[in-house]
């Protein structure tokens, strides 16, 4: 499915109303960027590298609590960056995961940076794939690339980028390696220069394919603009109350910015 607003290069793509609801002050900013990742992947280091030490998170090392915010500028655009709590997943019921999930799904940041540990890619992709289920615009930050090298692990970032359908940037945030490249890619995704074709789950889930397909069809008819109805169907089948409420109130349908399509 193609993102409707992906070719709108100049308009601020963010969904201000939703972000304000989530407590983000968007005045003076062009784009908002969310930072997601597993614990222990150096997510806060990436945050600090992007924003500079002056705005360092002020969090307890090893644990970001709640949301930290910062800002940076790249090629005359002003970005607000929101550091989400480090989580292993977006599907469970802990408060942290709910904060992260709700921010990405309902806040619709212009770009979501997914920080992964290059030496533990397979395990970190769990979160990355879940993020890609709920947003169309993301950049994978392949962090700790130096450590991976030390352990004789090399990651083909181009191939990975092709598989995931989003930019993949190898970084070593502790040494400030790759940060410029990361900024460039964030900018390209935010401005619509890079059009993501995010990977969506393919493996069949035991016993449910029929139910998912059926619901999927109905949801597509009801919410034609929704990017990923299959995921919504799965959430309904899991009894996720926040998503059920959003479907019921129509909030889900308003998520994809339709207005840019009409312009």
């Amino acid at each position, binding site marked *: 499915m193609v993102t409707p607003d992906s070719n709108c290069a100049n308009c601020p793509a963010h969904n201000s109303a939703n972000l304000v609801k989530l407590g983000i002050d968007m005045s003076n900013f062009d784009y908002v960027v969310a930072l997601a990742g597993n614990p222990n992947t150096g997510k806060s280091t990436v945050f600090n590298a992007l924003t500079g030490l002056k705005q360092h998170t002020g969090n307890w090392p090893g644990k970001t609590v709640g949301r930290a915010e910062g800002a940076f500028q790249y090629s005359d655009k002003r970005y607000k960056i929101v550091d989400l709590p480090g989580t*292993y997943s977006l599907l*469970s*019921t802990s408060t942290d995961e709910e904060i992260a999930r709700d921010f990405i799904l309902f806040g619709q940041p212009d770009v979501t940076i997914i920080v992964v540990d290059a030496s*533990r890619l397979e*395990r970190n992709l769990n979160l990355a794939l879940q993020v890609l289920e709920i947003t169309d615009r993301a950049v994978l930050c392949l962090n700790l690339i130096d450590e991976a090298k030390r352990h004789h692990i090399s990651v083909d970032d181009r191939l990975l980028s092709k598989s995931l359908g989003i930019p993949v940037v190898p970084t070593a945030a502790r040494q400030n390696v790759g940060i410029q490249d990361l900024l460039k890619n964030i900018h390209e995704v935010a401005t619509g220069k890079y059009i993501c074709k995010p990977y969506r789950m393919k493996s069949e889930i035991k016993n449910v394919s029929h139910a998912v397909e059926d619901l999927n069809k109905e949801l597509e008819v009801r919410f034609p603009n929704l990017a990923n109805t299959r995921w919504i169907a799965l959430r309904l089948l899991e009894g996720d*109350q926040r998503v059920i409420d959003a479907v019921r109130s129509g909030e889900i349908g308003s998520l994809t910015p339709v207005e840019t399509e009409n312009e």
Partner: protein
Amino acid sequence: MIDPIYALIIFFAVLIVVLVLFFPGKGIITRWKKIKSQTSRVLIEDALKHLYDCEFKNLDCSLNSLTGNLTLRADQTASVISNLESMGLVTSTGNKISLTSEGRSYALRVVRIHRLWERYLADNTSVSETEWHTIAEEREHETTDEDANRLAARLGNPLVDPHGDPIPNADGEILVKQGITLNNLEEGKYARIIHIEDEPKEVYAQLTAQGLYPGMQIYVLQSSKGKIRFEADGEECVLAPVLASNLTVVPFTEKESVQESFENLSSLETDGAATIIGISNAMRGQQRRRMLDFGIVPGTVVHTRLRSLKGDPAAYEVRGALIALRKNQSDLIHIKKIKEN
């Protein structure tokens, strides 16, 4: 200055009084609360629940069984029944008492709240399984419908309680799963436990003491009048048929594959490798989700890497990360060892 002897005597006297009053579960205050809580509403709800239970099991419900269940005198029960009749919740013909449709939906509401609480206690608290029922029994009478809906939402709208009983939804619809009781399962057959009856308490305690819970795979080794010998997730158990009748099982269909290995992750020697087969259903709620998030899913290869001084916890390499698990967790993770040559 007060004499130390007197001071100590006064102190211990006060201590004893406080203990007698407030001792958790047995103190005077708790008992007094329990007696006070036997209001007419509680009696009505408990009576309806019992009647529904009889109906569900296709048993006839009499004044006697109700008296026993509510721990009341017969005349008190009779007044509860007449009360229910005047409210149009039950009808009685002769010795048989049955629910009207309003009575049934009221009963289902109470059952829903009860089972939601049990599920909550199992998933989101560290209350031990023998206490779930008792606590839910108290809370079911204090919970409003909105609270119940909120509770259900928070739990992700669960379908069954931790004993395997279906939870009615907010509209009072309930799923009935067909199964047979364990004493009716033939020798040499495989089945899965779908329900463990949690009343009476003493029987339930005996079943949980054997480590039985819904989701276990059963294989009957020997079924006779005197005893039933079977394997539950690979562990051999023996039950009297009376006890076995409290377990509901569903025999395996042709398609279902029998799980052969029931080795636990805790038994994997240091530096040994194994493939995960599954996580036992006894691991619930947040704990289970955390395991899945770590990548402990069927098919994952794990290695034991470190053991702490007493062997508990031990650290396992799972998909590139080193995760420490306690023995009571690794006991619930089924594996198949990989022979390395």
